[in-house]
């Protein structure tokens, strides 16, 4: 990877559009497709992943001088698993309902390929600052994609959009009226694939336009 070519801001923003983990790299699709039946679930999963990705990228970048090459993968896994366990405990303690609805997918962040991928491909070769920006950018791109995916599925599937939910308090808007019958398939797994497919198509179409203009 040509390291010093990109500016620091470039490292931050590349995850949002150019190298978006979901829409371009197609990494971490398992949690992305499974939990995004509402906008809030997408946001929650994104936030949990952001914490882990930012933490692991920073730590991997700090300890890289002392880690021998042959054991680097086990070391990264230990670091990532520790952050995931922390986020799992925090969710259970302070966002109990969210942790119930995300269920097993929080512990499964350990095997999200984006995180190990960024540790191996980026954080282990770049400075701490760059790694932090890269982690944050990638995670925000992931969160953005999950939020859009969740919001589209929720709006089409049940006519609502939920930004926050905790006990009795919730920020939820009924966009399509009380009598909207809902389109079940959008809430079910096939809806996730369909929506993601359209999102990829839209992203590619926009990218093509942009390329033509610059050329």
């Amino acid at each position, binding site marked *: 990877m040509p390291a010093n070519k990109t500016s620091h801001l470039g490292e931050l923003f590349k995850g949002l559009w150019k190298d978006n983990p979901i829409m371009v790299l197609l990494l971490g699709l398992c949690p992305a497709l499974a939990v995004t039946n509402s906008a809030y679930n997408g946001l929650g999963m994104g936030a949990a992943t952001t914490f882990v990705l930012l933490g692991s990228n920073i730590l991997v970048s700090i300890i890289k001088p002392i880690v021998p090459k042959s054991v680097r993968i086990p070391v990264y896994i230990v670091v990532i698993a*520790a952050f995931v366990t922390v986020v799992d405990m925090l969710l259970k*303690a302070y966002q109990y309902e969210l942790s119930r609805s995300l269920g097993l997918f929080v512990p499964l962040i350990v095997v999200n390929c984006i995180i190990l991928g960024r540790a191996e491909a980026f954080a282990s070769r770049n400075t701490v600052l760059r790694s932090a920006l890269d982690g944050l950018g990638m995670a925000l791109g992931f969160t953005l994609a999950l939020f859009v995916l969740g919001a589209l599925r929720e709006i089409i599937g049940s006519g609502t959009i939920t930004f926050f939910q905790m006990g009795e308090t919730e920020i939820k808007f009924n966009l399509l009226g009380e009598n909207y019958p809902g389109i079940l398939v959008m809430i079910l797994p096939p809806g996730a694939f369909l929506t993601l497919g359209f999102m990829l198509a839209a992203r590619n179409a926009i990218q093509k336009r942009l390329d033509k203009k610059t050329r």
Partner: protein
Amino acid sequence: MPETLKMLIVLTVIAGAAGLGLAGMHDVTEGPIIENERNFTLRSITKVLPDAEKPDPCVKKDAVFDNEPMNDAICLDGHKIYRARKNGELVGLAIESIGDKAYDGTILTLVGVRMSDGVLTGVEVLRHRETPGLGALFTRCEYQQQMVGNGPDDIKWSVKKDGGDIDQLSGATISSRCMLNAIAKAQRLWRERGDEIAQAEPLEDSREVCDAR
């Protein structure tokens, strides 16, 4: 330093540090987590225990009992049973009951039964993997209204497809049957083992899991 030794030390130190960090984090979050799980159980128990002559699952309950039903639990045949008392008398049970043959695996429910006449006072699904929007609709109080408030002999406790009085959820007969299966188990316990339930000593640790899950 030989490479192998370095590998060993680095890996050990990092794993040890991660372990220490997690132990610290665990100490911080342990309290709130136990509190959350307690509240969740407590809320479900309160939801299904009797409060009125004709219980309605869509009305929020605020029944007060002489004891803390949550701490007055027993295990019987793998069912965990919470007991509610008023004026020295056992008035209601919240029975953990498993519905077999759900659309996906089994479901775990908490079934509320009034001690005097066996009337179903509420049913709360604690764990299920039914299809959202189809089978999962059995968690809605509007669906449960046709069951709650009836005694074991007041209606025929099976779905209309099987000749009973309960409307099946359209497209999710299996899930509806499964919920009735869980309720039937609880009703059988109330009918056949009522005295045993009333006399059993409460569990010392009410968080214990009775193994039928």
